[in-house]
């Protein structure tokens, strides 16, 4: 039975700008350490094979699937989770845009969607709709709110809050 409990443990992680003490076997998934050990449950389990993107977090600004990322790969890097986007009560523009465009139904995919979107906007501040679709292709919204998510990323990229749809 593979058991790496004798390997050196990961003892420190830089999460949302704070150094956090942990005691984790290096092969454990980053997702399980964030959720179970640090109680940061914004990143979700959806598939366990990196297919749905619900577990997406940022490592040094880049979106990764934390369910298939060993925690050892995150050590020494800046980890940002959905809980780390809000600054002094101010939501990130993409979080605002998700509310503004109503880009969710059940909301389970939302944290992963937002983290993928933040990463995309970090690489490309003014993505076209086609680039948004391409950049977000690894995230699944089973409720099917994709057109609204595209609109939310577009809104955040333009830095303009559109007026709410007329009723």
């Amino acid at each position: 039975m593979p058991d790496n409990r004798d390997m050196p443990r990961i003892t420190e992680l830089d999460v949302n700008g704070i150094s956090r003490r942990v005691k984790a076997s290096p092969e454990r998934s980053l997702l399980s350490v964030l959720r179970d050990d640090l109680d940061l449950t914004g990143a979700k389990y959806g598939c366990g094979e990196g297919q749905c993107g619900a577990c997406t977090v940022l490592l040094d600004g880049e979106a990764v699937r934390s369910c298939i990322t060993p925690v050892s790969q995150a050590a020494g890097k800046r980890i940002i989770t959905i809980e780390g986007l809000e600054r002094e009560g101010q939501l990130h523009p993409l979080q605002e845009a998700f509310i503004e465009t109503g880009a969710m139904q059940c909301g389970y995919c939302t944290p992963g969607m937002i983290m993928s979107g933040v990463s995309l906007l970090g690489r490309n501040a003014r993505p076209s709709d086609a680039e948004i679709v391409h950049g977000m292709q690894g995230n699944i919204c089973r409720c099917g709110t994709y057109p609204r998510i595209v609109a939310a990323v577009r809104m955040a990229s333009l830095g303009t809050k559109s007026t709410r749809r007329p009723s």
Partner: protein
Amino acid sequence: MTAELTRRDFLTALGGGMVVLCLAEAADAQESGRRAHSGDAHPREISAWLHVGEDGAVTVYTGKTEVGQNIRTSLTQAVAEELHAPVSSIRLLMADTDLTPYDMGTFGSRTTPSMAPELRKAAAAARQALIGIAAAKWKVDKSAVQVSEGKVFCAGHSAGFGELTRGQQLVETIGSELTLTPAAEWKVAGRSIPKVNARDFVTGKHRYTPDLKRPDMLYGKVLRPTAFGAKLASFDDSAVRQMPGVTVVREGDFAAVAAPDAASAERALAALQGQWKAEPQPSDRELFAYFKTNAEPAEDRQTRGSIEHGMAEADRKLSETYSVAYIAHVPLEPRAALAEWNGEKLTVWTGTQRPFGVRSELAAALNIPEERVRVIVPDTGSGYGGKHSGEAALEAARLAKAAGKPVQVVWTREEEFTWAYLRPAGVIEISSGARNDGTITAWEFHNYNSGSSAIQGTYEIPNQRIAFHPAKTPLRQGSYRGLAATANHFARESHIDEMAHALGIDPLEFRLRNLKNERQRAVLVAAAEKFGWGKQKVAQGHGCGLSLGFEKGSYLATCAEVSVEGGRPKIVRVVEAFECGAVVNPDHLRNQVEGAIVMAIGGALFEQIRFDNGRILNPKLSQYRVPRFADVPMIETVLVNRKDLPSAGAGETPIVGPAPAVANAIFRATGKRLRSMPLTL
């Protein structure tokens, strides 16, 4: 328990103020089996209630569950509308079997047509009562008192709700004389407002069941059989018994472990030795023949005139067979539960559409009275009809009992694909006849296994026989968004298209010739106009198709444009017109229609559960394709708002339109008629 005693209990429990009880209509009460029930904290005649506390806080109690259909928002709007209070001042307490009234479950698009009117009445009664208190206090006539923005006022006086309910012990029931605000005069309902707790979702703060933790909580894992129906022939847990902190449970064919952390639980599960014995079972290759040979006697759903007579009158006759595959709901939050025993009392947090049903399941399986079981449903990561049952709840409860500690069980995606239930597969046979002038004279429709929802259709046909044939199913099946309405619409609307083609009549014109229902005609015309049916130039390799439908009080029509390149259909554009009476929240309705269209693309083009000999062959997202960003066409929705008609629910029916419209478009693009979902060339 007398009603009076119950009423006093309410206020004691709620801490004074005012409570308005919604009494379910007598007919409704019978229909939903609201008989007296030992496990209920409250009599089943009460379907919901609204409490105005001594601090003025408004709390509404309902057994409905929020699974992404945004009823927490639409119900709040309904209450705000009648109470004349801001949306932000109203809180909904939902789906907690100890705190909320009995509810059969959140399914069948029933919340908007049944629960919303009750809450509106409760809110209107509460407003009347507040006016009464204020009028007495200020010694003015009730007609001089008004409520607006959560304030009660008349000339020279003004008070918040709390100032009026303080020191009160009021129990109101809803009088029959109440009049509700007509939809044409709605101020809060009928408008687009954002999801009420949206901020909790975009910040990751909302806790779904898998996000919950309790002190000393263990993580549970279940030993799964190697095939459906397999029996645990031998079992050895000796390797696990030496692992510190690990609990093992074996009861019959149920074997599971719980450990202080997830990795230990997985190690323990891997160390369990079990031998399973299973019977040989059919595969997907023989499925449709299997349904036909394992069908039970037909249940007639419509017989009118004579098929023989109708066929004799026909100039053209058609006979075709259609089929749909088993598909999975794939809720992004898999089944999960957290169970905790406090002495003899069991509390379970779980994502389900039927909290009271799961409570019954738990009580029966654990052989304890229902009043010792509490089920709490956090707003859940979707259901789509797939979360009616309490498998994970029972697994967690058994483990927690054995361990003497709270236990959480979160299913893996593979478990969710394999051990939940599926949308039924089915075979549909249709024979029809029509005259050259486009009048349908005969319609014979047989559905094997998939179900009878929306089996009848809205066409005017003098001679009909429509029957549902239940059959043995090799896989576990259950409800799915829209039930069999998707399969029945796919077959019917594909066949109608085939008839139109055989007669050389435009598919829109052919449908209109055979329809009288004005609401059905209106959505069809609305969709065709928006789409530009028959008016646009269709590109090479493209085709356009349409479909119409009716189910659960809603009418729809869908137009689709499809391109076919390299043998693969791609949906370019979808227009869906939808009418569900008076629209409660236009943006959330549009969200439901758009989302259902996207979900429908999966069933139409690629979703299919493969299986062989009691095993699912594609139980992973890397093997089972669901719609992604790049699959989404240009989507336009036309909401036909009928303020003169009661609001119907809309979480399900919009899903039935795309598959037949797309199949019909593929035919126009390629000349190939695809009669099996998913549609593959």
